[in-house]
């Protein structure tokens, strides 16, 4: 227990402290510049979304609209009911499909990894070997036939109601990504690193598989879950080519945000729609940014807490 002095001795920096101080200033400067660069596009986007059309032509290089040119015209234009940018539907579709996708993936990975590590049954090793082999096979090979199966089953089911085909389409958007092998093996490697005696002692106390799973394993796997959430979220939110195939004939209000916004980047997009494009993208980005602000510190610390082993 160190005794505290009332008056602080004169601060003499030793050599190593001086080097640490120097490193801190260098990293501060570099990171400051990087942060400014990283913020620039976002500020530009938000700024331009408020510029009036006139201001868009005359002061393109200003991050923010010049005085008096602030207008909500662009926001009003796409928020009005009849405008063809159905932003609310897109947001809704994207949000719930991504959350479902992430939830299912995490749940499935946890369950399968738990089974592959803590339960033993015939053929387990063979299955794991097959997974490792199959991991190298990229999904692109299956796109065309999957599209054919999608069309054929839809033909077979002859879904009449809108809701039915909506559910069918989103079943086919979410499901293919759920069985990602990479995430599952990541989780399995983490489970292998958990000392077996924790589980054995719990089992000896009479805990059922389910209780072991929920009470012991899941809390431990927090950092790997965070990692899988990180990968699956960006993956499913930004998926472009598979949904494009499936949505080719569907009504616009069923699209996801990523597909919807490509309307503004297509070659046919009118050049003058900068304001509306910016406003829609700001609006589309808003909910995610809010969710991000709350979770990011927890997410990043969670990731770092127990480290990851591939």
């Amino acid at each position, binding site marked *: 227990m160190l005794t505290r002095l009332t008056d602080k001795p004169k601060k003499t920096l030793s050599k190593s402290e001086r080097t640490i101080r120097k490193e801190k200033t260098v*990293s*501060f400067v570099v*990171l400051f510049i*990087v*942060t400014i660069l*990283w913020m620039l*596009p*976002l500020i*530009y*986007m938000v700024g331009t979304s408020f510029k009036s059309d006139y201001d868009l*032509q005359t002061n*393109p290089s200003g991050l923010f609209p010049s005085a008096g040119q602030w207008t909500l015209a662009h926001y009003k234009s796409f928020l009005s009911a009849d405008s063809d940018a159905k932003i609310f539907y897109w947001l809704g579709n*994207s949000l719930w499909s991504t959350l479902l996708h992430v939830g299912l993936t995490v749940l499935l990975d946890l*369950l399968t990894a*738990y*089974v*592959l590590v803590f339960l033993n*049954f015939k053929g387990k090793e063979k*299955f794991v070997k097959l997974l490792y082999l199959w*991991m190298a096979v*990229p*999904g*692109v*090979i*299956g796109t*065309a*036939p999957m*599209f*054919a*199966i999608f069309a054929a089953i839809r033909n077979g089911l002859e879904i009449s109601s809108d809701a039915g085909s909506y559910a069918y389409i989103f079943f086919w958007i979410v499901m*293919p990504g759920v*069985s990602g*092998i990479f995430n599952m093996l*990541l989780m399995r490697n983490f489970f292998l690193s958990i000392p077996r005696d924790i589980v054995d002692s719990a089992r000896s106390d009479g805990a059922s598989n389910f209780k072991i799973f929920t009470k012991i394993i899941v809390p431990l796997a927090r950092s790997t879950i965070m990692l899988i959430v*990180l*990968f699956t979220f*960006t993956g499913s*939110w*930004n998926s*472009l080519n598979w949904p*494009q195939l499936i949505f*080719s004939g569907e009504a616009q209000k069923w699209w996801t*945000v990523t597909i919807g*916004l*490509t309307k*503004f*980047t297509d*070659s046919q997009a009118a*050049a003058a729609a900068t304001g509306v494009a*910016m406003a829609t993208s700001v609006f589309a980005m808003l909910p*995610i*940014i809010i969710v*991000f602000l709350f979770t*990011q510190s927890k*997410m990043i610390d969670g*990731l770092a807490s*127990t*480290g*990851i082993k*591939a």
Partner: protein
Amino acid sequence: MNNLELMQREMRKSKRRKNAVGYALLAPYVLIFLFFSVIPCLMGFVFSFMQYNPIDSSKNMFVGFYNYAHLFDFTNSVSLKFWKSFATMFLFDIVMVPTLIIIPLTLAYLINLHPPGYKFYRAVIYLPSVISVSVMGIVFSKLFAGDELGFFNALFGTNIKWLSGKPFENDILRWVVIFIASVWWQTGTNFVILSGALRNVPKSLYEACEMDGGSRLQGILHVTLPNIKSSVGICLFNTLIGYLGLYGQPYVLHAVENSIDQEIVSPMMFIQYYLKNASFVNMTGYICAAAIVFGLIVMVFGTIERKVMGERKRTDKYSAAYKQSKQDVEWGLSLKGPAQDIQSVGGANNVNSIN
């Protein structure tokens, strides 16, 4: 039936029950895995040997290696488009994938020095990876717009046609824009993982290395890098597979000025262009063949990456070499004969004589 058989049957039944539980819990994953990745891939393989028309099934027929022959016949301009799209993608990936490991690693190293306000920097650097690819497309196509309405053109008064240029000829500027946009967009994910890994390296290892005489650089080389190798492996695998299937960025940041329909600059775009367009419905077999070939190439890269980053089998046999040298010393002594026993034990090259 004495209790031995009873006990065996009991054991068999319990084993069967255990297996049942295992299979039951594994069933959902296996079903989804089979139905959504194994069967489509194998069907893709089969279709590549057929001329397949999803809409009018009466047209399907087996054509053997016809599709592959077409694919590998370089005079055919459609296949030529496929192979040219490989060239640009490889060129871009060779530059992109290493950058997306080095930049996040340096930023992670700097963040771990905890300069004042590092929490804010960390959040901002990670922020873009949450944004969707089309938003990134809209912003960067306006930032780098060709006419003087583009932000950078207006700012610097230049009139550089950033996003124009015909593919494969003079669109180097466009790839520069895609490079900048991708770095801005994807550093966040790897950055977060690598900074976590850096923080987990035990501090006592650095001190041990310093005590052993290692300089700061050797510290990084022998302590930091080996310890974060597994995390770097994860990031590298993900980035590599992501960028081999390059589709999002070039699609969103396509050449606006003189857009030509057939803007195919990566294999994924080639496959997507012909799949999406119903009028090419008879080419499905050919497209499956192209997808198979592209898949194989990606697999080759994937396995190479796993081999390079995976655990290398340890081959050096020091204890065996030690035993060998022990025997040699005895042998040498026996050769010299008993006379010089004492003298040779001392030995000319004694350990301490060197310093």
